[in-house]
């Protein structure tokens, strides 16, 4: 037992969790914690310029590295500004810890403030209950180490997610005898339930008999590090692998059996083959509506096996024949072992020929690069310029769906995007977080002008903290995805989508001390990217593109995956 302040206990507990980076913004109610951080040699604090971005940065850090990201903010508006970032992490199952200051919870007379509508008081636990995996508000100094350990344990195990620790100022500032331990108190929390082996053999039987199996690889495969197992399964069954949007990167998109991601703006080969398969092996996916399109027409004639660590996902969106609740990697290993006894690899079957044909017919992925400055050409060119381990983040909207379609992710944790919540402004701070986690790898944010404006102030963070990333602004001067819907589904009645030609992104970058380029050809684009990648300062590449460029193909709302419209 050592006598120390709550802030010191928190800091030492964070260090014990091997936290090396915190993204945050200071404020009154979290001053004691910042005071403890002052002079810390183990933890680097990165000053965000908006708390929402601090949370996105923590998530970018988490998703690039596989570690738990940490963000912090003061009470009241600091805490409520975190909310979108926390919700984003919740939807995409990213482990982050949000530390918030809170007004004092005890003291004499008026120094007791919680519940009195004190200055900068917000009931952040009440506000975030539906978007956190759990939250804590320690009321004593002594409980802080256990709270921190438990928070990290809950955030990072099972289906990961955000955990909030709300820290009353008096608890940060107060002192007590504290033991900084590894103690965890999470009674009643089960990160995993026992594997049902009967289901494994049921699944193996289905797969062994399958004539047209397909694997759907989701974000859970990345979290569980099950990419190798998915690859082995694909080889064993000669099954094509489609990914969900969140699963992008879980299976190398250059692989002959990769058919790209499914969904509203999915790869046509993936959407088509899903409809033709007789057995689906879905791993680590929650069957989001953007992935499945109309559920009534989602693979009505196929048998479905669903592996997921979250029991609540089984049967939530899609009724399945064989549910397997558990860690994807463990379950896939068991399934592979069970199958190896039953199966010999078969090449040249009708199905493998069909997969090859479908890829060729439906994915005429440009044998030669078009020279026009269109998203397709830009993203294919970008892939060639980036090493396989480069990390790409995206904003939300057309830029995101073009990236999903045309930018091939080759490795897990190299494609980071706001899948569930669809948060515009996510990509740039997520890129900063990813770069902070992986300083030796290139990090590129594929942005749209509308999204980038939503977190452009983080240029200040990236420049002053010397975290250089590259932002490619596919600049069409409109809120493009909404404009596309208004064009296609609302008879071109454009409303509230025109952004005009402002700001000048080159000048904007320069105003923050970053460098800016405007490119008007593929050659210039390639040159600018090369310069950016070797540069020590953040680069914004403004790429003006046509404002009526569509993301096609497109499954209109209410339609099923095979009813996709438009050319690839």
């Amino acid at each position: 037992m050592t006598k120390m302040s709550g802030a010191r206990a928190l800091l030492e507990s964070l260090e014990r969790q091997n936290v090396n980076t915190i993204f945050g913004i200071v404020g009154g109610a979290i001053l004691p914690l910042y005071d403890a951080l002052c002079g810390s040699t183990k933890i680097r604090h990165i000053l965000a310029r908006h708390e929402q971005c601090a949370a996105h940065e923590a998530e970018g850090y988490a998703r690039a590295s596989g570690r738990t990201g940490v963000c912090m903010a003061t009470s009241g508006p600091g805490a409520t500004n975190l909310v979108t970032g926390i919700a984003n992490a919740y939807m995409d199952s990213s482990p982050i810890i949000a530390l918030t200051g809170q007004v004092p919870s005890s003291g004499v007379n008026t120094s007791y403030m919680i519940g009195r509508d004190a200055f900068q008081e917000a009931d952040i636990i009440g506000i975030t209950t539906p978007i956190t995996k759990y939250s804590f508000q320690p009321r004593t100094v002594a409980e802080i180490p256990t709270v921190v350990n438990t928070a990290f344990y809950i955030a990072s195990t099972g289906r990961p997610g955000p955990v909030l620790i709300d820290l009353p100022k008096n608890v940060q500032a107060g002192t007590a005898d504290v033991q900084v331990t590894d103690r965890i108190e999470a009674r009643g929390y089960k990160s995993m339930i026992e594997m049902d082996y009967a289901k494994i053999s049921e699944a193996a039987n289905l797969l062994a008999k399958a004539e047209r199996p397909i694997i759907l690889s989701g974000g859970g495969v990345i979290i569980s590090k099950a990419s190798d197992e998915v690859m082995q399964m694909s080889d064993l069954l000669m099954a094509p692998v489609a990914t969900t949007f969140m699963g992008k990167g879980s299976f190398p998109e250059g692989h002959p059996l990769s058919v790209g991601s499914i969904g509203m703006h999915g790869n046509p080969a993936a959407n088509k083959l899903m409809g033709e398969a007789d057995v689906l092996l879905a791993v680590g996916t929650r069957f989001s509506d953007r992935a499945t399109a109309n559920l009534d027409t989602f693979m009505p004639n196929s048998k479905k096996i669903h592996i997921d660590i979250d029991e609540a996902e089984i049967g939530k969106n899609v009724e399945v024949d064989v549910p397997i609740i558990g860690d994807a990697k463990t379950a896939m290993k068991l399934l592979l072992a069970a199958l190896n006894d039953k199966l010999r690899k078969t090449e040249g079957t009708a199905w493998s020929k069909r997969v090859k044909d479908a890829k060729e017919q439906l994915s005429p992925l440009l044998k030669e690069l078009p020279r026009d400055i269109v998203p397709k050409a830009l993203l294919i060119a970008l892939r060639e310029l980036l090493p396989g381990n480069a990390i790409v983040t995206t904003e939300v909207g057309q830029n995101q769906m073009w990236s999903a379609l045309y930018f091939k992710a080759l490795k897990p944790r190299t494609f980071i995007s706001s899948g569930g919540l669809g948060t515009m402004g996510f990509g740039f701070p997520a890129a900063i977080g990813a770069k902070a986690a992986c300083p030796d790898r290139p990090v590129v944010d594929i942005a749209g002008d509308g999204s980038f404006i939503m977190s452009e102030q983080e240029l200040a963070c990236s420049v002053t903290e010397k975290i250089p990333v590259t932002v490619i602004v596919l600049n069409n001067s409109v809120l493009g995805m909404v404009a596309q819907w208004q064009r296609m589904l609302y008879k071109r009645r454009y409303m509230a989508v025109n952004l005009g030609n402002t700001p000048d992104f080159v000048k904007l970058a320069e105003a923050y001390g970053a460098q800016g380029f405007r490119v008007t050809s593929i050659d210039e684009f390639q040159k600018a990217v090369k310069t950016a990648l070797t540069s020590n300062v953040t680069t914004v590449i403004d790429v003006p593109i046509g404002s009526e460029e569509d993301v096609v193909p497109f499954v209109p709302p209410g339609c099923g995956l095979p009813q996709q419209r438009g050319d690839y």
Partner: protein
Amino acid sequence: MEVGKTKVISVLVENKPGVLHGVANLFRRRNFNIESITVGLSEQESISRMTITVNGDEKTIEQALVKVNVPTPKDRSDIINCVEVFRGRVIDVSTDSLSVEITGTSDKIDAFLNLMKTTGVIEVARTGITALARGAKSIRIDE
């Protein structure tokens, strides 16, 4: 959960602030209306048992405390007779009121309250539905 059918859900939860909010939120989010929710200590220390009834239209058990008006001595004996018929228990008597404890289906409690209307109900506290599964099966959180 199907709409229009009673579901009684028994949950063991940490006896901590915010847990009730979190659980109730799960129902609100999916637009289920909670008919009754009761929380109380369980046999395990620091663990509470929550009993939640959703879309209740079937017969389940609850308990009610009813304080009724007693205008005349004749009314008192009438009410006590009623309480016996309903297998309730008189738990407090004063010159012009009676307090009654009654246990049974929600219907039964409604019927009792209806009868009491003639003399006048002063206060009612209904527990909402509480439940344990029949037999030896139980839910438990390992320490």
